[in-house]
């Protein structure tokens, strides 16, 4: 970790978002959304309602789910009108948990 002299002054974070530093995929506890392309009508309601922006859309086409930030909330499967996203059992496997997590409990 950087010494104080090396940090930008004023607590400024230059350079935009740092998704690589906050990977919350490890928050999923037991279930993850699974995408079945065959059933998808590309309404993108899953995309619009995802709190983590984990639905991968390319050229306005639903392409799948990125699990780096997916917390497994299940909103996408509830939003899907055709059953193209279902919540599947995810076996607990530490090797898939990202190393840099942020703490869940932050109160001010």
């Amino acid at each position: 970790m950087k010494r104080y002299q090396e940090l930008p002054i004023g607590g400024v974070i230059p350079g935009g978002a740092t998704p690589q530093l906050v990977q919350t995929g490890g928050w999923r506890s037991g279930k993850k959304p699974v995408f079945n392309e065959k059933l998808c009508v590309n309404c993108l309601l899953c995309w619009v309602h995802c709190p983590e922006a984990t639905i991968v859309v390319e050229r306005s086409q639903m392409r799948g789910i990125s699990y780096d930030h997916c917390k497994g909330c299940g909103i996408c499967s509830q939003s899907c009108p055709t059953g193209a996203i279902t919540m599947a059992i995810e076996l607990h496997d530490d090797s898939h948990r990202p190393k840099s997590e942020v703490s869940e409990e932050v109160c001010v």
Partner: protein
Amino acid sequence: MRVATTHLTLMTGAEAAAHAMRQINPDVVPVYPITPQTPIIETFAQFVADSQCDSEIINVESEHSAMSAAVGASCAGARVITATSSQGLALMLEIVYIAASMRCPIVIAVGSRALSGPINIHCDHSDSMMARDAGCVQIFAENAQEAYDLMIMAQRLAEDRRVLVPVMVMQDGFTITHSAEPVALLPDQTVQEFIGEYEALYPLLDVDHPTTQGPFALPDYYFELKRQQVDALDAARGVWLELQKRFAEISGRRYEGFFEEYKLSDAEYALVILSSTAGTAKVVIDRLRRKGVKVGLLKPWLFRPFPAKEIAQALADKRAIAVLDRAISFGSWGPLYLEISAALGRYLQQKPALYNYIYGLGGRDTPPELIASVVTDMQSGLDPTVLRYLGLRE
């Protein structure tokens, strides 16, 4: 006789500060009225109304919002000045700390006024002393001329890349803000050249290079970010010395060092006083010197960063020193005394007798006789471990 004063214009300290603001012509001026600061922003508003400068004034709904808008504007990339007093400073104080931590070079003109309660509109330094740990540079002006000069220096000091913290410029409420005195103004162009253009380090409005400003820092980083503020205040010392030289060149007025010494070098007894009462003390010193009493004055301009080492050196050979405080830290002593005491303790082997007097709270007048009585006290070798009050019925 006429020649001596032709460069001078009679104006109040508040008007002098407003003239400095007019010449600086900042981008944004968020303000809220409060006695005795109000004539600063009224005078400035008239300058804007008369097209003598073209800043954007935001007439906010509280001092808290004044400082909040100031931080927003400053982070956006604007040059920002605001002004306040007393309860107004108390209300904005939460955000003054944040302004310092976000490294906003905001200039804050303060008309010093006692804090409530009971409510009182007159001068003491309890407001600025309350803000002493906020992370701002704090400069005290003795009179209207200094109030003007220091505002201009403050702008440049705040914006120096080595500093980048708010700078508070204090002038005594009513005694200076509402008192008309001769002031020499600099040409507008000279002021503009002195302060230069302001370019923010991380302008929020640079939408092509998005920055996140004011994030949430936990124990893993908060400490480092606070440590940076220490460096900023330390750097302010050197920048202040550089600026004085440049300011002397453009104005002929000298602010040498961190404090003014008045007949101090050969003095046996020293008075340490901030702001307008230091002026009265000079008159007292002249009178006592004529009677053969070797007394001098040390008047700090800078209170933050506190020039501890230099003050200790300047006071090292005195027989006795009296620090006059226009504020009190309840349960302790005067804030200026505590600084001087720490400075002497840190830097001197042999310490002079050090006295502390609280004076002038809530605008209680301090005539020359009271200041002279302090010198008499020192001469008679009173116990320096007793905190004393000047002009108090007790």
